């Protein structure tokens, strides 16, 4: 990666490289209570408290490992036609790396499995809609990488696929412009709903390649009393997820106009064993080291 000095860079690159997973699912944190300790309640109308609430819903306020999973269906969209493409089941392993009043940073590793739309079986190949071309489906593993979060974040960085990885299958080298935003969507029936938006574009260094985009919305919900309790380091949040992204290089869609559209849901897992069975089975095939020792998988800084 070209912009390793900028911790924000990892976040953007990660978005584009992840096969389209969208959600940066749950991640973890290391909590560094930013505000004074006393058992005061978070005020979700304050930016700093809103960010802390999001941190504990998606990650945690401490340095522990966080695990979250996501399940979604992906469609191909082209000129008013929508066709089923695949399912996906993914998980992130993460921990909080750094916290300030208006920003926190996590180290995250993401594994995504692309599955048959109906059966849920792990895909090796896929016939793309519209082009009718049979393609190979790459295994997706990204990270560990740094990702930053703030109530409002706007960053630009350079990206190049890491050596000895298949990241080039997901995005070409170039400039990445990324924005993120966070808002309190609603408090309803005792639950708090926080909406997080990400939108990024990749402008390839090779100007003959098309630009790419990634747009993701996630809404995180958890009991308000737990979210607002400054003593509670993390809460069991549920996430709903919707994303759109350009065709990825591995899809070999060429000049076909269109994009993919995905949506689904997920939740925090309390341990590796707590992850969905299909995710565990597929990960044992493709990335067993992550299941054996996820913290170790997070320790190697990305180069």
């Amino acid at each position, binding site marked *: 990666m070209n912009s390793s000095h900028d911790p924000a860079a990892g976040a953007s690159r990660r978005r584009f490289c992840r096969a389209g997973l969208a959600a940066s699912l749950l991640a973890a944190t290391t909590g560094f209570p930013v505000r004074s300790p006393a058992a005061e309640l978070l005020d979700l109308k304050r930016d700093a408290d809103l960010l802390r609430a999001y941190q504990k819903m998606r990650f945690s306020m401490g340095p522990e490992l966080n695990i979250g999973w996501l*399940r979604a*269906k992906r*469609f191909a*969209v082209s000129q*008013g*036609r*929508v066709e089923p493409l695949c399912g996906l089941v993914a998980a992130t392993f993460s921990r909080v790396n750094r916290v300030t009043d208006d920003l926190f940073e996590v180290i995250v590793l993401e594994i995504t499995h692309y599955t048959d739309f109906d059966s849920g079986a792990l895909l090796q190949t896929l016939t793309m809609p519209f082009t009718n071309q049979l393609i190979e489906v790459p295994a997706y593993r990204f990270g560990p990488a740094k990702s930053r979060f703030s109530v409002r974040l706007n960053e630009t960085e350079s990206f190049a696929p890491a050596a000895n990885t298949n990241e080039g299958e997901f995005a070409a080298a170039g400039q990445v412009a990324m924005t993120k935003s966070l808002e309190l*969507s*609603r408090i*309803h*029936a005792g*639950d708090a*709903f926080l*909406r997080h*938006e990400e*939108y990024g*574009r990749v402008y390839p260094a090779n100007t003959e390649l098309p*630009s*790419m*985009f990634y*747009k993701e*919305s996630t*809404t995180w*919900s958890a009991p308000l009393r737990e979210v607002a309790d400054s003593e509670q380091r993390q809460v069991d949040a*549920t996430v*709903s*997820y*919707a994303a*759109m992204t*350009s065709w990825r290089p591995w899809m070999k869609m060429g000049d076909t*106009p269109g*994009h993919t*559209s995905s*949506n*689904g*849901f997920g*939740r925090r897992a309390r341990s590796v064993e707590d992850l*969905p069975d299909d995710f565990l089975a597929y990960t044992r095939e493709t990335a067993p080291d992550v299941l054996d020792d996820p913290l170790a998988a997070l320790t190697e800084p990305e180069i």
Partner: protein
Amino acid sequence: MADTLTGTTRRRLLQGLTLSSFGLASLSTEAQADSAAPDLTEPADLLAASIKMRGSLDERLAFIWMRGTRYTLVNGEALPLCGYLGGSITRYRQLADDAYEFLLYEISYYTDLETGEVLQTLRMPYVDREVDVPLYRTGPGRHVVMLANEEELEWSAKKTTGEELARQLAPDAKIYYRFNLRPAVTFRDQVWIRSDSFTRLVPRDTAQPGMFYKEAITYQASQAELARAGSVQVDSLLSFAISTAWRPWMQMGGIDGHTTTDGIGGKELSMAAMPADFLRFTEAFHPDVLDDPAALLKL
């Protein structure tokens, strides 16, 4: 329980389907009251569980609210367009093991992203044109919810709530509609059931562009509540993602793109429990809806 519907009957029941579609199902109250915990791998149980989440098995009214953000998507550029606040009045009735009648009346508001207030006009990106924003109100629609169906229907301005409004939403057209209820997913104490619907309109006036509407709605509820003997409905939350072609009122002719909306929502058992802003807007723009919502579902 009733027998499985024939294809012909399904087609007849689906007449009157409107552009947008939810999708639900229900089981007879009596049958459910004495049943054991549902087996969500069984189609009938899956359908019944879905109805419990979306409405109720005892044919009472249920009210759905949806809140989200709508974007334009053109050449990979996503621009926030407006907020979305929708409300639906619904009622379900079992028709067969594998089919439920679904009556629907919808009221939607397009709102300012900053203030949350109802938009009267909106400046559309790319064409830089100020357009009038219509008040969306359609129904009653009669739908049938099954695990899967594909139907051909008609959209006519003369057969909807208001002829002028109907024109702003879509031209008279042939509608091709596809609906799928997906298998349930269970994790710890929660169950998610998702449906996908896809609607394509082919205008009778071949000079007009075709339109599409793609909607995914996922309901989430407590597994224990779904399994509780005698329960006819459960508290639920929903998330949704919608993509749709430009509507006529947007005046985006010639621009290659569409809109996309996503957000969250929930189910209520009374109109009074709907979100305060939805009630305030409805009192201002559609007071009759608050006066007698059940009357709106009379076909």
